[in-house]
């Protein structure tokens, strides 16, 4: 055990534990949930945590723990999809830009600049707000549309270094096609920083999705963590438990991603771990 801690570090191990708990909750949580996410119990409104309702109930008498577990599945589903899409698109686009260079690179990087000019949640908010009753699909689309650019920039930077290496030149000299070189030789050697980026990106998507639901745009389920938080803060003056549960849940996942991301970054870039 001590050996494991020494190798991985206590921070990343803790982060890994938090993320494992989150994905377990997302995977099996809805089966373990004591009530349905929208099952109302009008005799028990805004109740504090008790044996019947471990995290209390909301203003409609819904069980907070059940909502939180269903919300975990929703958050995990959306975030994993968005990160996978962004990683795939960003790696492909960035690799093409970096490998071919010239006008291809110029055009792609200008497009990236345009998407980067929308700070924070601005573009996501505008898109989700424009679609009537935007559901999960629109959220994924809105978060992916500018989410890939960060990955593209990292991938391009990596490819610029890797494409001059001997093994790539060797493959080129053997007559391999550009696509084969990119897929078989370049991309596998650029993945480490992209995985680090994806870990931090996962936290980002969780936060943005929660912010959008918090602002009340779109029509995700009432049990999305952002909606739960928004509902909880409305009743903060009367009872605190409603805002604490989703707030701690979001913070836990984001903290887990940051710890694991830091650990991976130190591992892939040994110079950093000395500091």
């Amino acid at each position, binding site marked *: 055990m001590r050996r494991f801690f020494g190798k991985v570090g206590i921070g990343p191990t803790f982060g890994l534990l938090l993320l494992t708990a989150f994905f377990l909750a997302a995977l099996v949580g809805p089966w373990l949930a004591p009530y349905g996410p929208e099952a109302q119990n009008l005799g028990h409104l805004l109740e504090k945590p008790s044996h019947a309702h471990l995290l209390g109930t909301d203003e409609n008498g819904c069980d907070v723990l059940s909502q939180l577990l269903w919300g975990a599945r929703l958050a995990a589903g959306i975030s994993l999809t968005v990160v996978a899409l962004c990683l795939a698109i960003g790696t492909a686009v960035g690799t093409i830009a970096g490998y071919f260079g010239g006008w291809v690179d110029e055009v792609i990087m*200008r*497009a990236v*600049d*345009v*998407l*980067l*000019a*929308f*700070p*924070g*949640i*601005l*573009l996501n*908010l*505008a*898109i989700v*707000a*424009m*679609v*009537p009753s935007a559901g999960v699909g629109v959220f994924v689309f809105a978060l992916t549309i500018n989410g890939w650019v960060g990955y593209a920039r990292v991938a391009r930077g990596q490819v610029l270094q890797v494409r001059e290496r001997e093994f790539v030149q060797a493959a080129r000299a053997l007559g391999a096609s550009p696509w084969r070189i990119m897929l078989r030789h370049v991309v596998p050697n650029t993945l480490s920083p992209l995985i680090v980026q994806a870990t931090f990106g996962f*936290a980002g998507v969780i*936060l943005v999705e*929660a*912010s959008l639901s*918090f*602002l009340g*745009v779109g029509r995700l389920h009432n049990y999305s963590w*952002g909606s739960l*938080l*928004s509902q909880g*803060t409305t009743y*903060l*003056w009367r009872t*605190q438990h409603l*805002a604490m549960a*989703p*707030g701690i849940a*979001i*913070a*836990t996942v*984001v*903290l887990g991603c*940051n*710890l694991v991301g830091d650990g991976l970054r130190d591992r892939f870039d040994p110079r*950093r771990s000395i*500091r």
Partner: protein
Amino acid sequence: MRGSFLRRRLLSSLTAVLGVSVLVFLLVHLIPGDPVDNLLGERADPIDKLEMRRCMDLDQSLVVQFGRFIKNVGNGTLGRTCPDQRRTVTSLIAEALPSTIALAGAAMFVALIFALPLGVAAALRPRSALDAGATIISLAGISMPSMWLGPLLLAIFYVGLQWLPGPADQAGLPGLILPAFMLGTHLMAMLARMTRSSLLEVLGEDYVRTARAKGLSSTVVVLRHALRNALVPVITVAGIQFGSLLAGAVVTEKVFARPGIGTLLLEAISQRDYRVVQGCTLVIAVSYVTVNLLVDLAYGLADPRIRVQ
């Protein structure tokens, strides 16, 4: 060399602004379905729909629409509000913007005033209890969702301790404190981490060792030689993040019910006033590009190596 750096940087900012304008214009067309149906709902009154179509120029060809959009951007009005055409979008934004800029400025102040001492202290005593404490504070700041932090701050300092004014009384400096902390905490945590790693790197440089070797006191070495160089990237990132603060203000203004461009944007969204949504998005994005340009130019002036690259 300096002229070409300036020209290249200006050109890329101009393309970004142009691209942003096109994208903001296309926003209504990019989304599947009829824009007016999207805005008013499919079962809306046909007369209302017709009026909306005319007001938003959707009865014209795409080229004419784009021409009018560019004209509205060019003459600085950003068009009139739709469906009710009483005001120009610019006048609405001009009313809202000062409050948002004040909020973003205060958040930046909060971020810097806490991040720098925290990062420096952690870097000067790496792997000490102080460093661990600073790391925990930054990790908490990065992980806490701001829309949770804001209400918690209100619950503690307004409802509980009654030290600071709440959403009802936002005038003056005291009313700015809690919103600034809500908006600035994430940036503070980010900058503290950056300051720490940047200073640690600089402290290992040869010129710092030389400065120590010639017998300068620790304070002089850190303040005069190390910190000046370590802070350049930190200040650059802080500058670039100013634009993100403008966008992040949407959530803060909602929590504190503050007037500002975020509140304007959310109101426009709920009233389906598309022109105002376009206008707010454009103004925030263009300010972001402009701030980035200024930061880059200042960075280029401070560090000649940047200009040559």
